[in-house]
């Protein structure tokens, strides 16, 4: 009996912990949108000390958070980011800031990382460290967890869009497609990005049903409701007119 109770408590505990950890990427991406990012002091490779606002005031920023000793997602994340952006070389409406969230990283480590990706001479890319990473992480809800067993951080591959006034306009978690990058770049430049509600069992009367696979809208049941009032009125008019017809007197003809 006692064993069963202990087993049940442990199971529930794991379930709760599991649920806490499985906050979807979509929800995380919605956090802090249109809030100001913390204005952290930066040590930028090849430049003197400056503040984050000096960078985003100059041009909107795409902020990528990595650490140089990462044996996981950081390298493929940066590689994909570089590949996605290299086809947008003509688009100089933004800069990219690669910032280490590992306090052990030095500016020298970030320089080496830039060289490794052949980006050290690219004027659109900045590699930097900061001594205020905790405050900056809080302002973007980025929570890397140190795993002492594998000697690595457990973290998201996070890309944050910041407009020229320092507001977080969009967040992307994970390695993403070019279309998502287009939306991110549009958002930092304050260009409207359409968003669609995904189909749901509880949403019965949509005017249009968006198909995420084709990216097209199909006519929905909701459109009937828009036409319904006019249709009901016409039917009522005909109905009443028919039923009061016998009461209608002969109207005098005009001369």
């Amino acid at each position, binding site marked *: 009996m006692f064993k069963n109770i202990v087993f049940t408590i442990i199971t529930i505990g794991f379930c709760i912990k599991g649920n806490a950890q499985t906050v979807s990427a979509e929800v995380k991406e919605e956090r802090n949108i249109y809030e100001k990012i913390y204005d952290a002091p930066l040590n930028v490779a090849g430049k003197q000390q400056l503040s984050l606002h000096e960078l985003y005031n100059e041009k909107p920023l795409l902020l990528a958070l990595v650490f140089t000793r990462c044996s996981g997602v950081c390298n493929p994340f940066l590689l994909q980011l570089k590949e996605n952006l290299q086809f947008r070389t003509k688009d100089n409406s933004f800069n990219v800031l690669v910032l280490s969230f590992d306090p052990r990283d030095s500016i020298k480590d970030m320089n080496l990382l830039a060289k490794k990706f052949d980006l050290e001479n690219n004027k659109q890319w900045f590699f930097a460290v900061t001594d205020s990473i905790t405050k900056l992480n809080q302002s973007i809800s980025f929570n890397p967890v140190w795993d002492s067993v594998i000697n690595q951080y457990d973290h998201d591959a996070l890309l944050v869009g910041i407009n020229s006034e320092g507001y977080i306009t969009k967040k992307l978690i994970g390695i993403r497609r070019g279309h998502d990058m287009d939306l991110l770049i549009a958002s930092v430049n304050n260009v*409207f990005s*359409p968003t*669609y*509600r995904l189909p*749901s069992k*509880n*949403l*019965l*009367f*949509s*005017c*249009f049903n968006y198909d995420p696979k084709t990216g097209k*809208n199909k006519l*929905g049941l*909701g459109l009937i*409701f*828009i036409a*319904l*009032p*006019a249709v*009901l*009125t016409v039917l*009522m*008019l*005909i109905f*009443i*007119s028919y039923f*009061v*017809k016998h*009461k*209608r*007197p002969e*109207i*005098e*003809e*005009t001369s």
Partner: protein
Amino acid sequence: MESIKLRKITSVWVITVLILFIVSITLGILMRLNQGEVISQSPVTFYSNLTTHGLTMIGIWFVAGMAAVNYLMQRYIKTSYAANVIALVFTVIGVLMLWTATFIGKFHAAWTFLYPLPFKEMGAATWATLLFLASLTVLGIGWLIWSISLMTQILKKYSIAQAFAWQHFKKNPKVETPPFILISMITLIGVIACLFAAVVLLVLFYAEYFSKGNFVNDALLMKNLTYFFGHTIANEMLYLGLAVIYELFSEVSGRPKWKTTWYVALAWNFTLIFVLTAFFHHLYMDFVQPEGLQIIGQLASYLASLPAAGVTVFSVFIAVYRTKIKWSLTNLLFFIGIAGWVIGGLGAVIDSTISNNIVLHNTLWVPAHFHTYNAMGNVLFSLGFFYWFSTQFSENSKVSKFTTLTLTLLLIGGIGFLLAFYFGGADSIPRRYSIYPSDFPMAAPMATIGATFATIYLIAILIFFFNIYKRCLKILFSPS
């Protein structure tokens, strides 16, 4: 006997509308003073007042038009006294419920109550949303009964074709449809359609409210229905006022009665068809709405308003140009009201043009134009009727010595108040802000100027009120 009853209930309508109008203007002035930073209201209080002000104004000027049309319709057909009483009772109960939801419950989703705002409490009481929806239901039921009743009475005398004056498209029609019947019928059809839209909208709101998350609404559908109801009723109440003018302007001016011609019939039939689709112009910013509907919105906005405005202005112009007119307060109010309606209407047509809407959307231009055709248009139509009605059964029907002063105050107050909105719109000052950010340095001074002129307008309305209500009370308490 019936006409005495109608006379009495019309007096109650007049007094009720004027009292609610004075309260609503006061709320408007308080909001502008808050925007001008002369007084300080919490955002929740500001938006509660905005909700009360907007909905009460729409409601009272709709019922004012209906009461006037109902009264004058007795000249042509027998109307239902019971439907009139039901509408009055439901209106009073509905307004009390609405004010409880906004003043006590702090419901503050504005008069448009766009989905999903009513479901976000944001400082309002938990019960306020349900009471707000219930208040709209009560108002809607009362008005729907009244409108259907009036339409039925018209159809008892005129066939559908005659009520819409289709016989006037041919030469020498055998039967003449009075312009008053034509415009009333066309307006009632629009009113019934938009009240049906409100029914569908409220059913969907209730469904989501009581489903506890098992049913959610489509925001685009809800916005379409909200403006089908809201935009259409705001337009139809103007047409009710115009029906009164077509009936009374020539009569009080000592001129021959206006008649229905083929172009009057055509213009108003255009209005019937297109006013029901003009609301699409409220959805230009909704990218999911197909482009075709946006274009229909722009074209319908032109076709619903311009022909009707054209024939009305032409009729009034012909009636007064180089003609000896017996001017009285009634036809002066009608005349100034038509000018306000046309100016505000042009502002609306400009805003409904897609290329302009991109610039003007949600700036003070929007309250500028709708206050023009309401405060200096439709309100004056109804005030003209109220004055005319109150003097019909009064021994003392002399023009008050305050008439010139009242009209002067009304014009100065109204124009000044509106110009503060128009200049604000030209300066791209956004609407619906309780406090303006420092990016708009002219916004607060403009709001204070607007409030000052609105106070002058209020003084004029108070003079009207004291002028009219005594006579209405006499009618109400006169022996049957």
